[in-house]
């Protein structure tokens, strides 16, 4: 399949697809197709060594790190922080235009936070989900709050919102956490102008609905199925694609024998009604906490010589799945990492071969760890090279399943785990360039801790990401050679973007280490406990006149 893609790349056919950002960075994943690729090429392989900081913005909200994707519209950068503060900044100077601080209740406690991964901007408004499970709309010009709605009482559901909303036409679509709690997941759409609820898709079907039979007894009421990251949208098909996370209890599956639909599935929903059009389940009856929660990259590629509308999704298990996004037909699945032993492999129809499940009361060595063959931070796809760029994490764990009964809204893991180095080597990570259909790797950049920031690809044939030690760096998209690096002072857990103002290209990256995973890395590397927190947006450009 590779040679065929290469031929299409050479002919420039892939560049005609509408997935590249230009002056703005309007959505979480760049455009609706979530490529995280920009057509801007002022900064490129030949001049990136001259890249220098032009401004930095300190948010002051450093606990939990800075995990957001900044959104850029008409030269204004919209940035959200861990405790739901939002800033509007002049993209050229860093001058603060307004700030909004969501009034979080003082006594809030959540296992999913504090962190926030971004806002949605459009219709004159900025939309954000909150740590206490509200959706809020802010005036894009003034920062004044327009409406706020409590999706469900966070004290009861144990759930909240940390992902960026997706604005589709006049609806703001918002997911929810709670996949590791006794909670029944959902995806909600609200009227962007009034905040009124429009539709809800339950990720676990109720009595009488197809799929309900995959949940015995009352297990459907507490089965997780969170929608904690951000989906994609295909305007031509009018379908919203969202990846649904793991079932609960994570490691103990005896009380939920069955496929547990629609957990660990990509679902395609009618954007206007929220009705299910199709689903593709990657891991039936997951007992490893291997969420199908990450980005849905929409790309059209030749499969056996014929152009197909595809959807690529990296699963936490270390496998990447590609399906036809018009009808859920399985195309391929390929490993992103070396250390995988939870299955022996994946068959030609996408079926799991040789499941290796956790056992009750007995530690089992499993790879990758529940931190994932990759974390939630996104990969990027470049139509110039035809390659998908993603980080990968090589690590394992010992899991012990424990029988656990659900208590509504309380954590519901059904087991414990301890991270371990993989057999024969130290845990480490890499950023690689892959054929999106076959997983053939063209180059790989190795790093001795875990790479936990998103990837940005540009038409300058550069890929950018950052590491936990604070370096933000650029690699040659064609060779993986490191061309430039800058120490930002705190680790990277967010997503870099690029934009243009007045003919000048800017690269912006959040810096500020934190998150559930980041805090636990001390299990493998004791020195990482002392890695510094932070919450700063760094912005780079070439010197003026270049």
């Amino acid at each position, binding site marked *: 399949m590779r040679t065929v893609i290469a031929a299409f790349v050479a002919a420039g056919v892939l560049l005609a697809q509408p997935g590249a950002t230009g002056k703005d960075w309007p959505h979480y994943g760049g455009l609706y197709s979530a490529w995280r690729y920009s057509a801007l090429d002022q900064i490129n392989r030949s001049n990136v060594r001259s890249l220098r900081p032009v401004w930095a913005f300190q948010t002051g909200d450093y*606990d939990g790190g800075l995990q957001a994707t900044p959104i850029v519209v008409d030269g204004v950068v919209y940035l959200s922080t861990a405790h739901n503060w939002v800033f509007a900044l002049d993209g050229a100077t860093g001058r603060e235009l307004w700030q909004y601080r969501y009034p979080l209740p*003082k*006594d*809030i*406690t*959540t*296992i*999913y*936070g*504090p962190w926030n991964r971004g806002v949605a901007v459009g219709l004159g408004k900025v939309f954000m989900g909150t740590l206490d499970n509200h959706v809020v709309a802010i005036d894009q010009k003034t920062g*004044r*709050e*327009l*409406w*706020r*709605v*409590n*999706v*469900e*009482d966070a*004290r*009861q*559901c144990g759930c909240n919102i940390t992902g960026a909303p997706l604005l589709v036409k006049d609806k703001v679509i918002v997911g929810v956490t709670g996949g*590791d709690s006794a*909670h*029944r997941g959902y995806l909600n759409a609200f009227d962007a102008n*009034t*905040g*009124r*609820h429009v539709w*809800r898709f339950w990720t676990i079907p*109720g009595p009488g609905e197809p799929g309900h039979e995959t949940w015995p007894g009352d297990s459907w*009421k507490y089965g997780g199925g969170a929608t904690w990251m951000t989906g994609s949208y295909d305007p031509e098909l009018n379908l919203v694609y969202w990846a649904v996370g793991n079932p609960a209890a*994570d490691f103990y599956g005896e009380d939920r024998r069955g496929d547990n639909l629609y957990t660990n599935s990509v679902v395609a929903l009618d954007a206007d009604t929220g009705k299910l059009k199709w689903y593709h389940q990657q891991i039936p009856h997951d007992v490893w*906490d291997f969420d199908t929660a990450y980005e849905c990259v929409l790309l059209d590629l030749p499969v056996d010589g014929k152009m197909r509308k595809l959807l690529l999704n990296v699963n936490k298990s270390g496998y990447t799945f590609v399906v036809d996004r018009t009808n859920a037909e399985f195309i391929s699945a390929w490993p992103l990492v070396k250390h995988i032993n939870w299955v022996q492999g994946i068959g030609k129809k996408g079926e799991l071969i040789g499941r290796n499940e956790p056992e009750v009361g007995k530690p089992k060595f499993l790879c990758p760890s*529940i931190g994932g063959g990759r974390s939630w931070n996104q990969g990027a796809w470049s139509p110039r090279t035809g390659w998908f760029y993603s980080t990968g994490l090589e690590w394992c764990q010992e899991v012990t399943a*424990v029988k*656990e009964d659900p208590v*509504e809204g*309380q*954590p519901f*893991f059904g087991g*414990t*785990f*301890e991270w371990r180095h993989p057999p024969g080597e130290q845990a480490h990570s890499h950023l690689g360039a892959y054929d999106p259909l076959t997983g053939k790797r063209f180059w790989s950049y190795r790093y001795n801790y875990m790479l936990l920031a998103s990837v940005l690809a540009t038409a300058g044939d550069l890929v950018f990401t950052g590491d936990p030690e604070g370096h933000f760096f650029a690699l040659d998209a064609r060779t993986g050679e490191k061309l430039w690096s800058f120490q930002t002072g705190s680790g990277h857990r967010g997503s870099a973007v690029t934009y243009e103002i007045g003919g000048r290209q800017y690269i912006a990256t959040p810096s500020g280490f934190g*998150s*559930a*995973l*980041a*805090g*636990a890395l*001390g*299990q493998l590397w004791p020195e990482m*406990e002392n890695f510094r927190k932070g919450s700063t947006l760094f912005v780079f450009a070439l010197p003026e006149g270049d």
Partner: protein
Amino acid sequence: MLWLLFLLAQASGAQDEVAVGERIFAKSCAIGYCHGSGGAAGRAPRIQGRSFTPEYLLKVTREGIPGTAMPGWQGRLSEEEIRAVVAYMLSISASGRAAVVASGSSTTPAPVVVTPPDAKAGRELFFDAVRGTRCGTCHALEDRGVPVGPNLAASPPRSVGAIRNPPLGEVRTARLAGGDEFPALLVEEKDGWVKLYDLTVPPPVLRTLRASELELSPGSRWRHADAIASYTDQELELVLAYLRWLAR
């Protein structure tokens, strides 16, 4: 000799307590996002090998740390269980097992309140998550739910009929300059801005509108019976029993 036996007995009692605490810790504190297996650190701080006083651990375990992910466990764990978890944490801390014995294990059991069965069933219905809209969508009780509507424990409705059709004096009709009209509950009027709940569809939306673009008039077409249509009379009898029990 007797004195030595007493010490040994106390130490072995403490060992049992540590074992109980270890089981609770594994299930409630070690899990994915929190303190990690054996307190080896997760997103939350490491417990293993650090120094703590028993008083600090007791306070934080009972009350939590506001503004962080650390919840208070009082009410979720019994006092004995909290003390057992603290004993376990001391045993894996820098102070080690000696601190467990020194901290003693006297307990003051909290008074136990038993909810009668019909009130318990009513509480479950009030907060029934399976329904998209339930009583708790607009009313808060016992630190759960959303406090938009009146506090029902203060003066419980007299009958199922009164639950279906309570007096709605506070609900008004809002008209926007653009023509949109909706049932509204006024929250605040200040400096030319109005905060109100839009009750068009549940859950209620707290909207901030310019007073000059808004007209509020008494009464509305909104009916409480529509909002709670998913409840049968039988179910509302149980909800009523719950509210009466709370107001006892």
